[in-house]
């Protein structure tokens, strides 16, 4: 059985269909299967990435034996491969963290683990597929899994957050369906490479309408400004491993689909300016909202939306350097934000109130967790020795090269806002007077392991960024090289 990109989807589905039966045999098995599947997929990622990097050619896998434009195909190139491998590694770490997670054990664990695995498969599917309607189906899989996971806990108002997310998510999928339909009438095919090739035949009026529908629909998934009201509730009400998965995987898939549509399918210049403007609005509003938050997890949620706005700005600049910076920021955001969510969750569980000022002095009683959280905070703000610094630096350089000085000013101003609200929390952790509560919820060995690995990655990439910069440059070139994508997939 030669290793091929379809394993990312066929295997988790096989495991998901098998799990209800295994649950009858023994409950423990059900919790282990996602881990086994994700570890195997991480190995597959390493093998496939090696193959792609050595040959320089993307792996285009046709399904059901029909060549590219007629059937559905999966594209595992430098760019999509990077995203898929990042998602799989992060999902494995999050699974290790959530394996013996206290809050999840007493609920119906079987459903949790199936939904979690499908959330990962859906996000990976969105990135891998080369067919526009197939991307819609995988987005629906991710969406339904996240609606149910958001409303997983009984005691919190998860159901409200779930319903609000579902409502806005349904509107997003309606816009996407309309856009796909219009695109099909103009171009006659659903394969993304063929669409990109034939896009010049579409009249501009129709092209702009289709782009608006796409950007509105996908903007909701990528948490762009106008319709991202669902995100803070979804992040804070869902179990914290799921919050970390949202930050590390689901929002990446949303941003990927937006970028794939704007960079590869359409060739309208106005889209880049639109990305920059919406990115700035999302960044500024999310960061200021984060400053006002008193609930730790909502603050992290708003900060995550802000980071996504920053990624959109970087993609909006559109030069090779800027896209490289954007990919680096996506990598950092996935690693650092998951660490913050994981360590943050243990503060929240140990303090009676979820509010930030309820956490005073917990850093002294929980030193290692306090260290991890502060490390994450310093990294995301972009202080020099950590990995967050490099991605922010590269994007600023790219913006400066394009002489967008106003943009540089805005980014620096927002960074100051970030520093304010993150250091406020860190200060509270260490210098607040400690409350008398005993530390009850200790993370499991798995929790410590995955958080330590994330911290190590932040430090290593911080000191030796060129470990992955060369690799990211090639990924950025693959994304920008539209002609190569078309010729590889269609094979002429």
């Amino acid at each position: 059985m030669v290793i091929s990109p379809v394993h990312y989807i066929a295997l988790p589905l096989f495991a998901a269909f098998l799990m209800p039966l295994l649950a009858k045999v023994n409950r423990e098995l059900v919790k282990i299967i996602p881990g086994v599947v994700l570890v195997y997929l991480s190995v597959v990622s390493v093998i496939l990435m090696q193959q792609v990097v050595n040959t320089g050619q993307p792996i285009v896998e046709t399904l059901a034996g029909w060549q590219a434009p007629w059937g559905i195909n999966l594209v595992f190139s430098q760019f999509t491969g990077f995203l898929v491998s990042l998602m799989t590694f992060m999902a494995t770490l999050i699974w290790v963290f959530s394996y013996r997670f206290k809050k999840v054990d007493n609920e119906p664990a079987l459903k949790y683990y199936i939904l979690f695995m499908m959330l990962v498969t859906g996000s990976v599917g969105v990135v891998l597929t080369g067919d526009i309607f197939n991307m819609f189906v995988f987005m629906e899989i991710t969406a339904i899994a996240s609606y149910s996971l958001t409303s997983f806990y009984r005691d919190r108002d998860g159901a409200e957050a779930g319903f609000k997310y579902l409502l806005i998510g349904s509107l997003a999928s309606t816009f996407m369906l309309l856009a796909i339909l219009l695109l099909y009438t103009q171009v006659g095919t659903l394969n993304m490479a063929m669409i990109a090739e034939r896009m010049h035949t579409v009249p501009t009026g129709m092209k702009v309408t289709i782009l608006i529908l796409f950007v509105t629909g996908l903007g909701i998934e990528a948490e762009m400004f106008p319709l991202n009201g669902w995100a803070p509730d979804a992040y804070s009400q869902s179990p914290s491993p799921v919050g970390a998965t949202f930050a590390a995987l689901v929002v990446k898939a949303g941003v990927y689909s937006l970028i794939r549509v704007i960079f590869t399918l359409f060739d309208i210049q106005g889209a880049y300016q639109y990305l920059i403007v919406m990115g700035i609005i999302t960044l500024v509003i999310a960061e200021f909202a984060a400053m006002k938050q008193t609930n730790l997890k909502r603050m992290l949620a708003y900060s995550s939306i802000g980071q996504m706005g920053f990624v959109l700005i970087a993609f909006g600049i559109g030069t090779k350097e800027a896209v490289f910076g954007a990919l680096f920021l996506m990598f950092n955001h996935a690693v650092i934000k998951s660490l913050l969510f994981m360590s943050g969750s243990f503060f929240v569980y140990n303090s009676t109130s979820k509010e930030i000022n309820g956490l005073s002095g917990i850093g002294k009683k929980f030193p290692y967790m306090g260290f991890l959280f502060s490390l994450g905070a310093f990294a995301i703000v972009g202080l020099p020795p950590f990995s967050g610094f490099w991605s922010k630096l590269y994007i600023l350089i790219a913006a400066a090269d394009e002489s967008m000085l106003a943009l540089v000013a805005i980014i620096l101003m927002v960074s100051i806002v970030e520093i304010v609200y993150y250091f406020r929390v860190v200060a509270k952790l260490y210098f607040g007077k400690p409350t008398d509560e005993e530390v009850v919820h200790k993370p499991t060995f798995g929790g410590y392991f995955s958080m330590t690995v994330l911290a190590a990655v932040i430090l290593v990439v911080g000191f030796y960024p060129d470990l992955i910069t060369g690799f990211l440059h090639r990924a950025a070139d693959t994304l920008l090289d539209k002609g190569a994508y078309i010729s590889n997939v269609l094979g002429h």
Partner: protein
Amino acid sequence: MKKAFIILLLVVVGWVLADTFSQITFGESRLGDVKQPETVGAYYLNNTVEKLSVANVITAIVVNYRGFDTLGEVTVLFLAASGLASILYRRKEKGEHDVMILKNSSQLLQTGAKLIFPAILVLGAYVFIHGHLTPGGGFQGGAIIASGFLLMFMAYKDYHVSHNVLTWVESVAGIVFVSVGIWGLISGATFLENVLGTGTLNDLISGGVIPLIYIAVGFKVAAELTGVLETLLNFKTEK
């Protein structure tokens, strides 16, 4: 004020849609020449009979050309069923038992249900077995069978489909679907490839793997929709 803003928004959306769809003339063929297929639709119309010898082109598309979509689609239904169960999950204190929320039905409905129920099952089975010949297929057949079970739920207050059987049918059908895909992969071809011989057009055993997949989908959809109904129906727990 809010309503005025919404009305304005609706007018704008309506105008944009109307203007866009006015450029797409209704009833005009956009397939291009079917013999030298340029568009995907024309290709399918041209090649389904020779390559797959399946009469129903839509079944060929849903199961073979775009079989990956259907795999994702079946997962969406699977997730909806398990998501529903996790959302409506209630830990039952001792002494509590699930009670059907529908009241007892009239004599007429009960005898009628007893007569019609087997017929609906046969119709549902017919629809998804002949998926590749006549209109219909896995989804439609499964939905018809589920509405058959619905009739029995309505007629008999304490009619229960054992949750065990439903889970078994659902999982086995899902595994059959994925393993047929993996079978294609193992036999050197691609995932979900039609590895069986495709037989002659318009007789029952034709189209190779396609009928097998659609029968598996039919069982899975029937089990899932009945599960969804069962979860929603017997929800009120009383002492």
